[in-house]
C-alpha cells in the first residue's frame, strides 16, 4: 500500500509541474506587487518619525518654509540642548522610569500570587472572587476614575506619585487572569515533589512556580512598562506640580508653551520618544509575540 502510494506520487508530481511553474511566475509577480504596496505602507508608517527626526535638526525658518526637505541645512544640533534646557526632561525621565519599574516589579509579584491562589489553592469563595476579577475587566476605566480621584484626595495622595503607583501595582485583573491560565498549564507533579519534602505554600510558589512564570512575566512586564511610560490620562488628573510630571505630561506642557517653534518641539518629541523606540527595536520579538499570545492591546 505504502509502496504504491510512493510509486503513484511521482507521476502526479510530474504532471503538476508545468502548472506549478506557471503559478510561481504569477506568484512572484504577486509577491513583488505586495512588496511594493507594503513598502509604500511602511513609508507612511515610518514617515512621521523620519520627519520628526529631520525637523528636529532644522533651523526654525527652514522647518517652516521648507517642510518637505529631508536635508536640514544647516544641521542645528542646538535644538536638543535648547529643549532640554527649556523643560526639565531629566526629572520627567527619572519620574517615568522609576514609576514604571516599581509598578512592573510589584504588579508581577502580586498578579503571580493571585494567579497561583486561583489556579492551585481551594479556598472558600474562590470562584466568586475570580468571576469578580473577570467582570471588572469589562468596566471602562472612565467609570471608576472619578471615585479613584476622590479616594486619592482623601488619602492625601493627590499630586503624589503614589496615586499612580499603588493602584497599578495592586490591581490588574488581566494580569491575574493571564497568570492563572499559565499556572494551570504547569504539571502538578512539579509541586508534589516539593510538598513531600515538607515545603509550605510560599516556598513552593517562590522556588517552583515563580521560576516557571518567565514567559507570561516577560509579556506582562513589557506591556505594563510601556503602558505606564505612555500613560497620559491618569497622570494628567492626579499630578499638578511640574517637577512630578512624567514624560507625556511634560511633552504636553511643552506643546502648550512653544506652539510655534517647530524644530524645538520636534527635538523635544525626539527626546521623549527615542528611549522607548530603542527598547522596542531591541525587544520587538518579545513584544510582538506577547501581543499575539495575549491579544493584549496597549
Amino acid at each position, binding site marked *: 500500500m505504502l509502496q504504491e502510494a510512493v510509486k503513484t506520487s511521482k507521476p502526479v508530481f510530474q504532471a503538476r509541474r508545468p502548472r506549478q511553474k506557471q503559478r510561481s511566475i504569477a506568484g512572484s509577480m504577486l509577491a513583488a506587487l505586495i512588496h511594493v504596496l507594503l513598502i509604500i505602507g511602511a513609508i507612511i508608517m515610518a514617515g512621521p518619525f523620519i520627519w520628526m527626526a529631520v525637523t528636529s535638526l532644522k533651523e526654525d525658518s527652514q522647518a517652516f518654509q521648507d517642510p518637505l526637505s529631508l536635508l536640514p541645512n544647516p544641521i542645528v544640533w542646538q535644538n536638543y540642548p535648547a529643549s532640554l534646557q527649556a523643560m526639565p526632561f531629566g526629572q520627567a525621565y527619572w519620574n517615568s522610569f522609576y514609576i514604571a519599574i516599581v509598578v512592573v516589579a510589584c504588579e508581577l509579584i502580586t498578579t503571580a500570587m493571585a494567579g497561583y491562589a486561583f489556579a492551585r489553592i481551594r479556598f472558600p469563595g474562590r470562584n466568586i472572587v475570580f468571576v469578580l476579577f473577570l467582570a471588572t475587566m469589562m468596566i*471602562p476605566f472612565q467609570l471608576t476614575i472619578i*471615585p479613584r480621584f476622590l479616594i486619592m484626595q482623601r488619602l492625601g495622595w493627590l499630586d503624589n506619585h503614589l496615586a499612580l503607583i499603588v493602584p497599578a501595582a495592586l490591581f490588574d*485583573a488581566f494580569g491575574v487572569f493571564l497568570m492563572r491560565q499559565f499556572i494551570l498549564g504547569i504539571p502538578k507533579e512539579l509541586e508534589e515533589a516539593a510538598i513531600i519534602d515538607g515545603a509550605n505554600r510560599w516556598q513552593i510558589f517562590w522556588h517552583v512556580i515563580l521560576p516557571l512564570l518567565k514567559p507570561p512575566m516577560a509579556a506582562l512586564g513589557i506591556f505594563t512598562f510601556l503602558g505606564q511610560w505612555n500613560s497620559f*490620562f491618569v497622570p494628567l488628573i492626579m499630578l499638578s506640580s511640574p517637577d512630578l510630571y512624567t514624560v507625556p505630561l511634560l511633552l504636553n506642557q511643552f506643546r502648550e508653551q512653544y506652539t510655534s517653534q517647530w524644530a524645538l518641539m*520636534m527635538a523635544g518629541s525626539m527626546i521623549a520618544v527615542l528611549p522607548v523606540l530603542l527598547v522596542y527595536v531591541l525587544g520587538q520579538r518579545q513584544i510582538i509575540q506577547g501581543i499575539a499570545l495575549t491579544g493584549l492591546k*496597549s
Partner: protein
Amino acid sequence: MRLQLDVSAMKASVHRNRWRRTLSEAFWGGFFLLPQLIGLVTFSLIPLVIVLWLSLVHWDGLGEVQFVGLQNFIDQLSDPNLRIAFVNTTIYTLITVPGGILLALLVALGLNKVRGKTIYRIIYFMPVVTSSVATGVIWLWLLNSDAGFINVLLRSWFNIEGPAWLIDAHWVIPSISIVSIWSSLGSNMVIFLAGLQNIPSTYIEAARIDGANRFQLFWKVTLPLLSPTLFFITVLSIISSFQVFDQTFVMTQGGPDKASYTIVYHIYNLSFRQFTFGPASASAMILFAVLLVLTLIQFAFQKRWVNYDL
C-alpha cells in the same frame, strides 16, 4: 466493639485532618490573594459603589452633598454638549473602526504571503509603542494647514490645496481618525497575523486542490476561519474608539468649536475642570451603558457570521 471504636477514631482523625486542610487552604488562599484583593476592592468595587452614589447627587467635591435622584441623568441626556460629544464620537467610530480593521487585515494578508516579515512588522508596529502625546504632537505639525508637511506636499506635487484638517470643523474628526488608524494599525495587524498563522494549511491546500481561485480561497476559506479574530478585534476596537481622548486633547482640545469634543472629553471636562462630579458620573454611566449595549448586540449577532468550528 474495639474495632468499631478504632474506625470512629479514624473517622474523627480524617475529619480533623480535612478540617485542618480546609483551614490551611483558606489561610494560604487569603495570603496569596490579599494584595490584588485589596486592589480590587479599593480601586474597582468601592469606586463602582461611589460612582453610583455620585450619579445621584450634586456635589462639587467640597461643599454639601445634595441628593437629586435621577436628575443628573435627565440633565445629561438633554445636555446639548453630551449630544455633540456623542455624535462626534459615533462619526469617529464609524470611520476609525472599519477603516482601521480593513487596512490592518490587508497588511496582515500581504505580510502573510511574503518574506521579510520582521522588518515590516517592526516598522508598522512603531506607532503602537509610542506615547499618544508624542504622536499627537508630530501629527499636529504634519497636518498644519499652512505649512504642514501634508498640505505643502499636496500643493507642490499635485497642485491641490489641501483641507485645513484640524482647524476645519468638517475635517477635524476624519483627521483624528487618520491619526488613530495610523497609531493602532500595528497592533490589529499583529493579532490578524497570529489568526492567519493559526489556520491549518491543510484547509487551504484542500481548497486549492478542489480548484478554488485566490478570490474564492479568501472568501470561502480564509475569511470564515479568521472570523473569530475579526470578531475579537471589532469588539475591542469599538470599545476603545468610544473612549478616544488623548488625541483630541493633545491636537485640538475638542475644537474647533466643539467639532472634536468626544464623550470622554465631556466626562473629563465635567469632573476635572468644572468639578461637577454628579453630572460627570452620570455621563460616565451613560457611556458604560452604551458600550455594554453595543458589545451585547455584537455578541448576539456573532453566531450569524463568526465561525468557531475549527
